[in-house]
């Protein structure tokens, strides 16, 4: 470890910060519907998800070994500065979407950031266009679609089979099933996303000649990446949890179970067959499918529309921020310092903006009321169509009543 230069150290810390925001951003995937149906108390849910993420991080290093996944042409030369800039782009976009309460893909933010930084630093030749389309864009369109259709059919089926039973009597069983499938999603998230960070850190170490090319991530990398993602998960991105659990549609226990099972299945099936896909998009898709599948279920398409817009923007936006950061960082030490200071300032500003209207475990299940326009939400609203009327009923605020 004595060979680690200051720059590599900065890259590692930045990667861990990204890992933290990743966990933070993606708690919603596994736990949003579990919290909104009342299957688990908010704090219990995030704690369980954090533990499973940590466990998942230790299970395998397969994804970490293929992090660049052929998307970046490594022979063009990946410099630590470029990785640093890519990470900064991903972190800033993750925090912005968190502030807006939009579930967007952390993986896409990471890919977008790395792609943007590489293009800015080494030109378009450094990008493997085919791999981007095949590994990122196609799964991005297909995954939520598959999960949505699956969850919709499953919801229809479960309501049809259980139509003669008392909802109050069966709710307990559905909640138990939902906890199990949410646990699977958390575990899969830990193995996938914690490893992406491990891969990035390893890439940086290789670029800095600290470890040999093609080597496995060192143990301290695995441990720190697992801890960072678990900590982020435990702190919990409550804004996104609220959007996913309450904002898109009102989820009842059978729907929550169907949605979570669909998400877990799609994630496992596709990663087994070699597609890396966004856990966030799969889970959002299945929540929407479950909303459509219930008779009388309402999907708030305005919220969903803003989410889709955020998905479309994730890759280019993170890429642009990263490209700017890469141009600066390429200027030398003062450039890297400037990027670090700017990134820190941006994070602080976003955090300050979030304090104006905090969302935490106490009000996570409350209705999705109109957002107070902050500076950044206004900026985002300028790009994304504003929400139409958001319907909030009394049942929204009471999980016990909603599930009865």
């Amino acid at each position, binding site marked *: 470890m004595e060979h680690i230069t200051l720059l590599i150290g900065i890259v590692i810390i930045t990667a861990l910060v990204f890992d933290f925001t990743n966990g933070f951003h993606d708690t919603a995937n596994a736990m949003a519907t579990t919290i909104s149906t009342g299957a688990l108390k908010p704090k219990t849910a995030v704690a369980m998800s954090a533990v499973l993420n940590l466990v998942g991080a230790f299970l395998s290093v397969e994804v970490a070994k293929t992090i660049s996944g052929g998307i970046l042409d490594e022979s063009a030369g990946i410099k630590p500065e470029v990785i640093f800039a890519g990470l900064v782009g991903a972190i800033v976009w993750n925090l912005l979407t968190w502030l807006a309460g939009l579930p967007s893909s952390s993986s896409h933010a990471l890919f977008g950031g790395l792609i943007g930084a590489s293009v800015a630093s080494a030109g378009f030749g450094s990008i493997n266009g085919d791999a981007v389309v095949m590994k990122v864009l*196609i799964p991005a369109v297909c995954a939520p679609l598959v999960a949505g259709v699956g969850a919709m059919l499953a919801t229809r089926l479960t309501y049809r089979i259980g139509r003669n039973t008392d909802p109050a009597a069966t709710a307990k069983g559905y909640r138990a099933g939902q906890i199990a499938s949410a646990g*699977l999603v958390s*575990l899969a998230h830990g193995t996938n996303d914690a490893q992406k960070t491990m891969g990035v850190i390893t890439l940086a170490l290789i670029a800095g000649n600290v470890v040999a090319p093609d080597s496995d991530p060192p143990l301290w990398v695995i441990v720190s990446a697992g801890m960072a993602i678990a900590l982020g998960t435990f702190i919990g991105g409550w804004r996104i949890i609220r959007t996913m659990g309450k904002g898109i549609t009102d989820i009842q226990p059978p729907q929550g179970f169907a949605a979570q099972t669909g998400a877990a299945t799609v994630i496992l099936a596709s990663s087994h067959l070699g*597609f890396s896909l966004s856990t966030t998009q799969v889970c959002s898709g299945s929540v929407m499918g479950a909303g459509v599948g219930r008779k009388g279920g309402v999907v708030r398409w305005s919220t969903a529309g803003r989410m889709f817009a955020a998905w479309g923007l994730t890759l280019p936006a993170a890429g642009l921020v990263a490209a700017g950061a890469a141009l600066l960082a390429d200027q030398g030490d003062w450039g890297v310092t400037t990027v670090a200071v700017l990134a820190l300032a941006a994070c602080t500003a976003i955090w300050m903006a979030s304090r104006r209207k905090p969302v935490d475990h106490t009000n996570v299940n409350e209705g999705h009321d109109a957002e107070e326009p902050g500076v950044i939400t206004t900026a985002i609203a300028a790009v994304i169509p504003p929400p139409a009327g958001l319907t909030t009923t009394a049942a929204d605020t009471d999980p016990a009543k909603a599930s009865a």
Partner: protein
Amino acid sequence: MHIDWAALGSVFGVSLAVTVGLVGLFTLGIVGLSKQGTAGGEAGTSAAGGTTALARTGAYLCFALCAAAVAYGIYLIVA
């Protein structure tokens, strides 16, 4: 540009089938258990007892299959 339609199709098919199958199975289990509760409460006749036992066995079978699917899922994650 090479798009692997076969892999995409199999992800689609497998995901749909497994999701719907698992949710259906689990629902059957829940329904079986809840029928047991209501039947037991209504009357203690032997006929009702027989169907209750059957429903309960069926329900546990369904849950066992679901548990097996979860175990296979964990195996896929680890492997």
